[in-house]
């Protein structure tokens, strides 16, 4: 049965925002038999004076145990879906995830598509995968004199872990960096290996690296691409709303064809 979330027993859970961290929250919740009022990443967000706050320290062993039993109940694909939702980095999604795992561990209907939690997570999986697909499409590489291809993006969710495989398979012979400037880290690829990299220059990455310039033909190919983009347009059928619906404006500044000039 669904546990009731309210009651004096319930409290707020604070964790570090990592996936093992969230699983540790679930572990703690069951271990101490105290339901969650909220699951947040920052203690300062809790303004409620009437309930306890429990700060959960991520514990790999507990996380692995929760992951293992959840997987045997739900299957690997479903687990990947949950992990995908977690990349939304939102308190309401974290809350849904904890609720859903509670349903799973208490023998509830995890396939009941009438359920608000089940459908809610389904929606969030869709949102996050949508952002993933958009980033696979809208990344624009620039070739630099050091032979590295660089790209900067600002995705709504933390999708770098989701797009790594796509770009590794597509550009195996290139040395490339994709930088998430909102989260201050990036992916670096070389010889089939993708590594996460942090940026030393505050949050904003400096790409290409200092003293490195765009390769010789780079501006010519950018200009040719803009020419192409202009030539395939049918201005008589202009429909900017439709264009923005498919290609949200917040991505434009990272897409060469949408940047003025040239």
């Amino acid at each position, binding site marked *: 049965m669904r546990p009731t979330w309210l009651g004096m027993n319930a409290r707020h859970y604070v964790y570090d925002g990592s996936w093992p961290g969230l699983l540790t929250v679930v572990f703690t919740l069951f271990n101490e038999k105290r339901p969650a009022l909220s699951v947040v990443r920052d203690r300062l967000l809790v303004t409620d004076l009437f309930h306890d706050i429990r700060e959960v320290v991520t514990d790999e062993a507990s996380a692995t145990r929760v992951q293992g039993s959840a997987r045997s109940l739900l299957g690997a694909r479903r687990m990947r879906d949950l992990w995908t939702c977690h990349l939304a980095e939102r308190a309401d999604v974290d809350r849904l995830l904890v609720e859903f795992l509670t349903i799973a561990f208490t023998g509830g209907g995890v396939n009941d598509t*009438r359920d608000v939690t089940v459908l809610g997570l389904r929606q969030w999986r869709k949102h996050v995968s949508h952002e993933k697909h958009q980033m696979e499409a809208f990344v*624009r590489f620039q070739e630099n004199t050091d032979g590295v291809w660089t790209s900067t993006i600002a995705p709504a969710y933390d999708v770098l872990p989701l797009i790594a495989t796509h770009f590794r398979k597509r550009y195996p012979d290139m040395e490339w960096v994709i930088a998430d400037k909102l989260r201050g880290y990036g992916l670096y690829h070389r010889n089939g290996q993708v590594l996460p990299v942090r940026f030393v220059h505050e949050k904003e990455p400096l790409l290409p690296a200092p003293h490195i310039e765009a390769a010789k033909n780079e501006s010519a190919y950018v200009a040719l691409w803009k020419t192409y983009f202009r030539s395939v347009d*049918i201005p008589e059928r202009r429909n900017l709303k439709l*264009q923005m619906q498919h*290609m949200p404006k917040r991505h434009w500044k990272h897409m060469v064809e949408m940047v003025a000039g040239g």
Partner: protein
Amino acid sequence: MNEARLTEKLSVLADAAKYDVSCASSGSSRSNHNGGLGNASKMGICHSYTSDGRCVSLLKILLTNHCIFDCAYCVSRRSNDVRRAAFTVQEVVDLTMNFYRRNYIEGLFLSSGIFKDADTTMERLVRVAKELRTVHKFNGYIHLKTIPGASEALIHEAGLWADRLSINIEIPSDAELQRVAPEKTHEQAIKPMRYLHKTIVGLKEERAVVKRAPLFAPAGQSTQLIVGATPDSDHTILGLAHGLYQQQGLRRVYYSGYVPISTDVRMPATGSTPMVRENRLYQSDWLLRFYGFSVEDLLTPEQPDLDLDLDPKTAYALRHPELYPVEVNEAPPEMLLRVPGIGQKSVRLILQARRHGRVRMEHLQRMGVVLKRARYFLSFSGTAHALVHRPDRLRPQLIAPLRQKAAQLDLFA
């Protein structure tokens, strides 16, 4: 690189190719096993969108717009006075590689005017594809247009390098085609389609047994029909499309609303074909392929054109009140699929939910069903909408609810 010359060629030859709407890059899967560049993803990716909202997935260009033919609907026709240009094989290869590496495109869609004869032209197209695959180890998507009248040997070779081949029928009826394109016939397009179909099916069977049998046009073949350039009805168009799916195993038929780019006297003096007709044809095409509808369900010789005010499924539902309401908690999936506003995903969710208990209206809303349309055609444990058997009164309710909303706002303003 001579940037100015390339820019000039690119603007002429991209502009001339843009009215071919078959630009999707989906349906192939070519993995990268030679350490080269790229792969073709099953989903197809739109890398950008034009200001009219169309997907930009491929570098879609003509090799040349010089042409010895004189098709009235085409800007590149011999008698038309336009700027002409031609790419070299090397230039197309370079552009493709460099756009692909920058993640601008999924691959290349290459077509051409017929510049000397069919075989010379086709051979040049094949050479571009072959060079990309062999010299540059390019594993991205390649779509080649098959030139009418090209030899089977060349078409076969094209299939070895390309992911998809297309042969455009363009004009939906043979008689009209011969009137506006004196050098062309339907048979001329169908014959190579038949050949390709046979080869694709044959090699697929072979691959099932011998893994190393060659990949041959893994994304199959497609065609394009121009809508509104000739008086052909939607019934003719969908009938033809249906036959092509059934008999030639086509992956996609594209419908291109005629844009009056041509001033040829053989063409109608009317304006552009309304976008909505193109949309209705795509919706109908979708119903034919995935929803179990037949052409006769959608159109008849007496009613040969689609209703532009209503989507084809809603129009069907209004013509067949006897089939509704559909009971959410009991109906078989194929009946749920015939409810306007319910798609394949919703049907799956409904079936799954039914195993856990009774499904109510509010559940459907969360599942993504468009209740604004669906609610008139459903019943929940026996309770249906009062108007379910009154198509005459439903029709105005279902047409452009937006317009009504606007009117209401006016009323209260």
